[in-house]
């Protein structure tokens, strides 16, 4: 297929989307969006949640077929009209979604060739599958057996399987939607290196990401979309782009600071966990928390830093009414008195609240509306006799809608319709209504855009000002450094360090997060 025309295209545009307009009933999701992607570059698309990035990619990949949008798509110099994903894939455009589309029970090889099996008369040629799989795995740097089930490898490796799958389809333009959202630092770095490698092999990438540092590191050009409109396209090298520059484009103003000003008023230690040891729920002899001790003072924001899988969530959830793992030993003290929390209801009763990192599968009933969700952890507060008071429910939900500035037409809306930031506000409202003394927030700003993050930080600080203790678990070190008064580091289930606000920086944290504790 190396026609002279194709050769000439190498340093020209591979894709041009012209004046794409996509309307949903009552709203324009995309309004005259245009984007030009050069062949062989990594092109980032930035924008707040709901700006229209995903919609644009769905138009491109044929998920919204030709005819349901206005405008034209020119791919490799020809106007294309994709009817569905199959037709865009056969043209060489492959999209990898944020939620991976792999079948957990099938092997790596089966997943890579799913729907694309080399076969004769319907009988799969397994030799060919396995041989090609090995080759593809080598290309993406995945060291696993080809017949390992996908559920047995980590998210980072699953991401690589997705890319291998794309490569098997002789991809020319690879679209990655939030590729590193679920990955830890080293997996993320591996993925970014891989993308750079693909670029050198002439594969063009479009990446959607909220992680601006990664974009700054790897992208050649950046298109910023805001409210369904193209704002600008920046060339990273020529335009001297940095994170602040991108943020300015995304929010349409420059954020003075990414964290609200806050002067903490820190009181006495009121919550303490000592020698907390918890076993893995499924694997015997494996500890997820090893002899961990920590304390929280009133009005204090305590950060928990650790790589993904270090045991931060496990520690938090096992403290929160033993909702994870097999409790083995350890003590909890609240206001100086020992406390045994054997169940979630008990933990709530004693003033604990836990906001999960996984909003959609652990934090929300997506069938519920805002008001039902808001009161769902403290139904007793609005129940008189036997009857749940619907009026009070509405009043309470309205109160939080206003005070947290949740963007919604009404508290009768379903939570599934809200953006990530607003969903998180509803979850926070739900826990605030239980009137907790200690809030444990697990990745409170994951999947939330920059503007909403700022608001969430404000809420966290306000909670601390009310004299509550707040624990923030986060993978983003700048975030922890920005809002915590004190930070614990966790590595392989053990607490490896404790740094006060002044002493901590990214480097010192990273050292403690990756090194074993000096024998304590």
């Amino acid at each position, binding site marked *: 297929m190396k026609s002279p025309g194709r050769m000439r295209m190498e340093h020209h545009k591979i894709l041009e989307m012209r004046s794409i307009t996509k309307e*949903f009933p009552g709203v*324009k999701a995309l309004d005259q969006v245009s984007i030009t992607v050069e062949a062989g570059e990594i092109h980032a698309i930035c924008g707040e949640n709901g700006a229209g990035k995903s919609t644009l990619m769905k138009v491109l990949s044929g998920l919204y077929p030709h005819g349901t949008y206005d405008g034209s798509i020119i791919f490799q110099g020809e106007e294309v009209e994709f009817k569905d994903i199959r037709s865009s894939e056969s043209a060489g455009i492959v999209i990898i979604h944020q939620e991976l589309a792999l079948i957990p029970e099938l092997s790596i090889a089966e997943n890579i060739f799913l729907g694309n099996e080399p076969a004769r008369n319907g009988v799969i040629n397994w030799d060919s599958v396995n041989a090609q799989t090995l080759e593809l795995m080598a290309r993406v740097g995945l060291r696993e057996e080809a017949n390992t089930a996908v559920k047995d490898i980590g998210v980072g490796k699953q991401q690589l399987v997705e890319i291998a799958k794309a490569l098997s389809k002789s991809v020319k333009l690879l679209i990655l939607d939030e590729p590193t959202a679920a990955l830890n630092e080293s997996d993320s770095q591996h993925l970014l290196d891989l993308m750079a490698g693909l670029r050198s092999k002439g594969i063009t990438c479009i990446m959607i990401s909220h992680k601006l540092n990664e974009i700054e590191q790897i992208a050649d050009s950046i298109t910023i979309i805001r409210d369904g409109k193209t704002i600008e396209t920046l060339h990273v090298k020529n335009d001297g782009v940095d994170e602040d520059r991108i943020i300015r484009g995304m929010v349409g103003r420059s954020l003075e600071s990414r964290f609200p000003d806050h002067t903490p008023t820190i009181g006495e230690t009121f919550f303490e966990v000592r020698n907390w040891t918890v076993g893995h729920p499924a694997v015997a002899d494996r500890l997820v928390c090893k002899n961990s001790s920590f304390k929280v003072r009133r009005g204090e924001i305590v950060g928990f830093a650790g790589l993904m899988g270090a045991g931060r969530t496990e520690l938090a959830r096992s403290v929160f009414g033993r909702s994870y793992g097999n409790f083995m030993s350890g003590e909890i003290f609240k206001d100086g008195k020992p406390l045994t929390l054997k169940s979630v209801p008990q933990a709530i009763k004693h003033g604990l609240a836990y906001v999960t990192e996984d909003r959609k599968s652990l934090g929300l*009933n997506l069938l519920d509306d805002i008001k039902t969700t808001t009161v769902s952890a403290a139904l007793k507060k609005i129940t008189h006799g036997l009857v*749940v008071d619907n009026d009070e429910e509405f009043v309470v939900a309205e109160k939080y809608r206003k005070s947290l500035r949740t963007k919604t037409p*009404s508290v009768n809306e379903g939570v599934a319709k809200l953006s990530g930031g607003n969903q998180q506000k509803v979850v926070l409202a739900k826990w605030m209504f239980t009137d907790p003394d200690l809030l444990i927030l697990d990745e409170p700003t994951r999947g939330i855009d920059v503007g909403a993050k700022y608001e969430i930080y404000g809420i966290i600080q306000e909670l601390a000002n009310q004299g509550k203790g707040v624990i923030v678990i986060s993978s983003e070190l700048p975030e922890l450094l920005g809002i915590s008064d004190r930070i614990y580091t966790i590595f392989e289930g053990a607490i490896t360090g404790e740094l006060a606000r002044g002493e901590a920086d990214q480097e010192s944290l990273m050292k403690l997060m990756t090194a074993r504790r000096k024998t304590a």
Partner: protein
Amino acid sequence: MTSLKQIFGGDTRQFGMIFALIALVVFFQIMTGGNTLTSGNMMNLFNGNSYILILAIGMVLVIIAGHIDLSVGSIAAFAGIVVALVMRDWDFPWYLGIVVGLLLGALIGAWQGFWVAYVGIPAFIVTLAGMLLFRGANQFVGQSNTVPVPQEFRFIGAGYLPEIGPDLGYNNLTLLLGFALIAAVIYNEMRTRKRFAKIGAEAPPVWVSVVKMALLCGVILYATYLFATGNPGTSFPVPGLILGALVIIYGFISTKTIIGRHVYAVGGNRHAAKLSGVRSRRVDFLVMMNMSILAALAGMIFVGRSTASGPFDGTGWELDAIAAVFIGGAAVTGGVGTVVGSVIGGLVMAVLNNGLQLLGVGADLTQIIKGLVLLVAVAFDVYNKSQGKPSITGLIMKNFGNKGKPELPTATETVISNDVSAR
């Protein structure tokens, strides 16, 4: 359309079901030359279907919680035979017989609930086993014989409200019941309007309330008239009364109490519910147990109506009840459904059955038609969802309209809602 919705409340689905029911009744009324809406036929309809509708009430809770119960027919039969036997052989009076039946239901329910909630076996398996187990138990205990029940016991299955007071040509208790219902409807509507004012929400226009009340009261009045003017000795049937009471009780429990909220929460997202402090196992246990109690009650009502308990009572009831629940808008995946919706779904099936019978359509064709109705009703629901109108708002009969100052939906919300419905 908006006004129509305000009048009937609920979501498109519930709205559609009520219309389908009315349309069916009207259709059969015309086709049968007026033989559908007669006192005798209406009484028949209630007597002959109340036990299925009672099962549907329990089943919708089971299904909302994300389970299923295939054993209800067998449990009904087992409870029926045990009750018939204790009354015949041990001379238990009828009221003790009922108590024995309900206790037996609770016991069986605890057994099934234990396996589902605390051992963690899928309800499908547990109740499939229960279906065999209790069918066998029925035939074992009753030695596959038919056991008659005493006259007094037949009251709960085939009785009518008694004649009391002066003879006005109507059944007085039925009239009283009808008027009480009308008073309740009016009171409720007034109270709702007051509540809107109290919490500062915008109430629907007055004419909507008036039309809504007029329609409801009209239907109730007509039904009262039908039931109060039947053949001498008949009036509003006792099974209908039991059903009505159960609809009110379970409607209340499912929408207004903590345990009701928890059933929806567990079915909607079990993990999230647990992390919000819901004791999900207890919820599972209770819904399974409750289902068996209602199955035992349904079994007794059926025995009362058919004057004897037999080895094949209750065959296939589980499927009728499940069909009613899904026609009534519940979701297979749990978290969605209403008690009222399920009873309406059951009534649609009942009216269909009854009307086809009156028209002399054979059992073969009737089954085919019922199968298609189930399919079309659920297809309607699925289609609605794919149009981005999730029919989840009908969880609670919506009392609130728009409130506050509605802001325009942002692109985010619409895009996300489309994403969700596309999955």
